[in-house]
């Protein structure tokens, strides 16, 4: 028992020594870990972070955890093993990710979180968080206005394991529920998926042909819903999404979806890399760990200015 423990200790020390000796050739690596790039939002984050990292002279290691906390843990190990100087992370769960970020910190690698927050302070250097709740309230206020404060509507909710699904739904309802003449006739999860939203919407329409609005937790589900509505000949139903994708921008310009809410994915990923660079080069930390990034309402008035999750002035 004692011998085993000593051996492990020795082995661990050797690994640590190797880790310390390694950075001479891996000094400029930044790991960028996000959910799957199938959703253009996460792709924009990765592209934004990678572009900024390269601009500042780093090598970028771009990885995806597919919203799987175990996979995320393995990717953090990879980043540690490769001697990354910093990790940019859009995490796989507010509670499940705390240990993974702590593991990186213990190995001397600072983490800079984007988009989603974790339920712990002092583990990551910064958390640049999309203000999902504020964004949801903007979307809901526009939805209420477009609906004329009355009518039957459907809510499509995101993936339950993702905290942002719950935050957005709560933001929607904190606004919409103040209007008693707006009646929710169905609320279903379509797991952020366009195809699932299409089939769920078809089924909902059979049971509730008399609906005037659909509010969706993200843009891919809004795209699925509008396609099902158009296929059923319902062209006057108000559809509102969330994220600010180019697909929804084009739909707004063509008179399909009425509004969405832009999360500044590209800008916040770049800001995270800038903060990582400051930390690596001078040990400087941001004044506040958690930094809230407000969302912006996109409708026919400003859709023209939207391109790849950024709004041109």
């Amino acid at each position, binding site marked *: 028992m004692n011998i085993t423990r000593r051996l492990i200790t020795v082995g661990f020390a050797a690994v640590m020594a190797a880790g310390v000796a390694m950075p001479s050739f891996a000094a400029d690596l930044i790991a960028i870990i996000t959910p799957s790039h199938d959703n253009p939002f996460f792709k924009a984050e990765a592209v934004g972070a990678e572009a900024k990292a390269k601009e500042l002279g780093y090598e970028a290691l771009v990885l995806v955890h597919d919203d799987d906390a175990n996979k995320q843990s393995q990717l953090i190990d990879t980043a540690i093993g490769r001697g990354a100087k910093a990790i940019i992370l859009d995490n796989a769960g507010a509670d499940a990710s705390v240990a993974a970020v702590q593991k990186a910190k213990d190995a001397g690698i600072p983490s800079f979180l984007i988009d989603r927050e974790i339920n712990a302070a002092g583990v990551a250097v910064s958390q640049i968080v999309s*203000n999902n709740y504020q964004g949801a*309230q903007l979307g809901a206020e526009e939805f*209420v206005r477009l609906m004329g*404060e009355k009518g039957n509507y459907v809510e499509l909710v995101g993936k339950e394991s993702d905290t942002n699904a719950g935050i957005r739904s709560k933001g929607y309802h*904190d*606004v919409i529920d*103040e209007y008693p003449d707006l009646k929710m006739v169905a609320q279903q999860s379509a797991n952020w998926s366009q195809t699932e939203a299409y089939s769920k919407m078809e089924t909902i329409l059979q049971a509730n042909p008399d609906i005037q609005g659909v509010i969706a937790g993200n843009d891919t589900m809004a795209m699925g819903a509008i396609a099902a509505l158009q296929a059923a000949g319902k062209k006057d139903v108000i559809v509102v999404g969330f994220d600010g994708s180019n697909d929804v921008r084009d739909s707004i310009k063509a008179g399909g979806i009425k509004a969405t809410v832009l999360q500044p994915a590209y800008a916040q990923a770049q800001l995270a890399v800038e903060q990582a660079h400051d930390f690596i080069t001078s040990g400087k930390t941001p004044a*506040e760990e*958690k930094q*809230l990034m407000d969302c912006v309402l996109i409708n026919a008035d400003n859709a023209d200015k939207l391109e790849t999750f950024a709004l041109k002035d």
Partner: protein
Amino acid sequence: MRFKAAAFIVFASALALAGCKFVKTADKEKEAQSGAFDPDKLVAEMWQGKVLPYLEKRAAPLPEVLSATAADPDQAGGKYGYKARQGNAPWTFIARVDGVIVSEETKSRAGFVDVDVDGDTKADVRISIGPAIRGTALRDSLDFVDFNSFKNQIEWAQFGKSFNTHVNASLLEKLPREGIVGKTVKATGAYPLPAKGQLPQLVPATLAIGG
């Protein structure tokens, strides 16, 4: 009359508790002990002692704030407003309104009055009169509250909404709604930097409609 109302509240509470008369108080105590998050209580506790004095002290006449903002929004923000040190929130301005109501919207639940403050009969500011109030301007105007001291953005948002709830219950519900166009109004409140060409949308902390 007052007794009747009180009796009704007691009766309604008893109904809501479905027979567990004494549980509510005990639950409240338990909540308080475990430090459960209660944003309404947080706001109620800071309203008289901290929020109102802060707003009264910081508030400048609206025409002064508007002309400063037109010249240089950032400089005006530093002098007449507040924004979080981190993130990308816009400036929230704190102003005192003294003017005449030129139009009203009371059919919408997000009701408002448009107010002229410079005597040209055109609206210069839109004051929310509820019951639905948009945004979190009151929270965002305060330099002594901070997102980082809250667990997550849901609690921070609930805290923001509680200011609106508080203003509604303590101030706006009692306002007259009929025939108020043409009357004078005095208010102190906060509004986020408006988009170009839009009226400032002020959430009031104090509001009085006169003759």
